[in-house]
């Protein structure tokens, strides 16, 4: 079945399927990631946290979610 409700995006370099109309807040909820501990880029542009609910992801979008890790 070709599911029209699903869109394929690139998430941290790998293919990932989301429901059509998913916004960034919903994506984080699905991934169980707290938004105050990450930063997000969509298609190379940093998205401010207050814009997460309004940013609806589209097919083919490249999403990068980053966090702090140990480093020198």
């Amino acid at each position, binding site marked *: 079945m070709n599911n029209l409700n699903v869109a394929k995006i690139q*998430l*941290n*370099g*790998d293919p*990932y399927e989301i429901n059509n109309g998913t916004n960034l807040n919903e994506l984080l909820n699905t*991934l*169980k*990631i707290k938004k*105050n*501990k*990450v*930063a*997000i*880029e969509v298609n190379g542009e*940093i*998205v*401010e*946290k207050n814009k997460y609910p309004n940013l609806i992801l589209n097919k083919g979008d490249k999403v*990068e*979610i*980053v*966090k*702090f*890790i*140990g*480093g*020198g």
Partner: protein
Amino acid sequence: MEDVFTIANKNFNSRLIVGTGKYKSFEETAKAVKASGADIVTVAVRRVNILDKDQPLLMDYLDPKSITYLPNTAGCYSSKEALRTLRLAREMGGWRLVKLEVLGDKKTLYPNMIETIKSTEVLVKEGFEVMVYCTDDPIMTKKLEDVGACAIMPLGAPIGSGMGIQNKTNITLIKEQSSVPVIVDAGVGTASDATIAMELGCDGVLLNTAIAEAKNPILMAESMKYAVISGRKAFKAGRMKKRSFGSASSPQNNLI
């Protein structure tokens, strides 16, 4: 009088800045940071692992509210990558104080100063406070200061080499000419190396591997804390002059 360490108008108690990489676990990282007494820790920006969402986060072990996170650009080899990393870091939690590190060579991890100066200029214009990892070349560090770096951080030796301060003359020259803090970043292998950096008059020391790769990292972290304090006090005290010959410590008159 208290000897406060000021970077970009912020005061810190400890002159030791520690990295948080290469540890066995976040528990060990947190214990080592505590033992070091550091007020500032460097952290790296990396992708979240989507497949393993239950991975612990550094922030769960080191609270950014009680310790200053200094986001770095370790692993970046161009100005473009470094700027992207620090902009993301700022978005994560509003960090403006950052460590810029643009590398030029994978083997030596030597900094690319052309890209470093270019990046510093852009970051300063965007409102960042930039602490800059750099070569121990006084002309380059002067240039960095001119474009607005808030701290100059020359290497003592290559990152992770543990070879100590290789060019004391240059570090001294850089310290003498700089009006922003000078922090030796990279090359420290053991406590005496950190003390030497401070005795040369440096304002602070940044290190990671010397603690993380010690047999007992927590004990080495504590040792580094005292090494930096000790070197600073020795610098402030002003060392005696060196002599070529002996000079007796006991009076030479009224000998029995």
